[in-house]
């Protein structure tokens, strides 16, 4: 009996330790690069890439501009072909995962003229931070909400039960 208790406690602790990888949503980012290409990258919050998933690039008017799939590193690179303006990248993963991001393509000619300047946008740089902080605050907020909601429901239920009891007594 004691053994079972200890096993459950150890199991729970190992599950809820902050080192356990977590979360489920997709992080995506898309941006234009100096060599007239667009880089779209998609990661799961633990840093693992979203492999072989469909990427669609939409223009501002909702027209499909380009589509493709991410590679083994969760990236998709395409030529921007001189396009400018605001675009939207949508990554559709398997099993109902989906994320979208808007980005702007600007002309890089002006940047090229000032080539001496240290490059601020180094090409092929991962812009996404692969690891997110463990959402302690959100967990506490959520548990607090559950506590408050259950107290509220308990109050309502008890109130109606007391009312029923008092009318029966009369």
């Amino acid at each position, binding site marked *: 009996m004691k053994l*079972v208790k200890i096993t459950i406690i150890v199991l729970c602790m190992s599950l809820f330790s902050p080192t356990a990888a977590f979360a489920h949503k997709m992080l995506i980012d898309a941006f234009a690069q100096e060599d007239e290409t667009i880089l779209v990258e998609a990661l799961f919050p633990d840093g693992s890439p979203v492999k072989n998933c469909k990427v669609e690039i939409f223009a501002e008017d909702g027209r499909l501009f380009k589509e493709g799939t991410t590679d083994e590193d969760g990236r998709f690179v395409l030529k921007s072909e001189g396009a400018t303006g605001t675009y939207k990248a949508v990554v559709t993963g398997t099993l109902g995962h*989906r994320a979208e991001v808007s980005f702007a393509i600007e002309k890089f000619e002006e940047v090229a003229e000032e080539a001496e300047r240290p490059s601020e946008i180094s090409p092929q740089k991962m812009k996404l931070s692969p690891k997110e902080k463990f959402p302690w605050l959100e967990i506490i907020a959520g548990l607090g909400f559950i506590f408050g909601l*259950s107290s509220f429901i308990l109050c309502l239920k008890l109130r109606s039960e007391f009312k029923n009891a008092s009318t029966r007594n009369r």
Partner: protein
Amino acid sequence: MHIADGVLSVPVWTGCLAVTAAITGVSLRKMKAEDTPRIALMTSAFFIASLIHIPMGPTSVHLILNGLVGIILGPLAFVAILVGLILQAVLFKHGGITTIGANTVMMGLPAVGAYYLFRLHRLFKFRVSAGIFGALAGGVAVFLGAVILALLLVTTGSEFIVVAKLAVWAHLPVMVIEGLIAAFVVTFLKQVKPEMLGA
């Protein structure tokens, strides 16, 4: 296995929302005051479980615990899962706001199924029957969730067998882990607090 915003078509997610609202309404009316702490406890467990995540090839899976929630709450599991999913969507950005109904149906129906599967353990009198049926219910709930996920994604134009295979395959480790967790918890509760299992 949360479906994100913008994946399902409007009729599908509104339909799921209606189903969820109906079942939740019925459950809330049936619910008694003394059920509240149990539901709150299981909602909290469900809410946090989704943070425990296992990378699996092209997708990502995490613990769901819908089987365990179902075993302990029975048909009231729907309420717990709905609240848990709303909090996950708002706080962790898991899944989407519009797809809360779809996700609740996907995890809630198997949870209720797990409850009835677990109740079968009373037909068998041997010592570990509760543990075995707990493990079965925990695993089957995840399996059914994966199947409902595939059914919902069929409406987006993907092929059922392909998605179902992928979903079940990706959730295989989750099924095993949740089966073990459910077996442990059920065996423990059976000995210290059998009334929590509706005995």
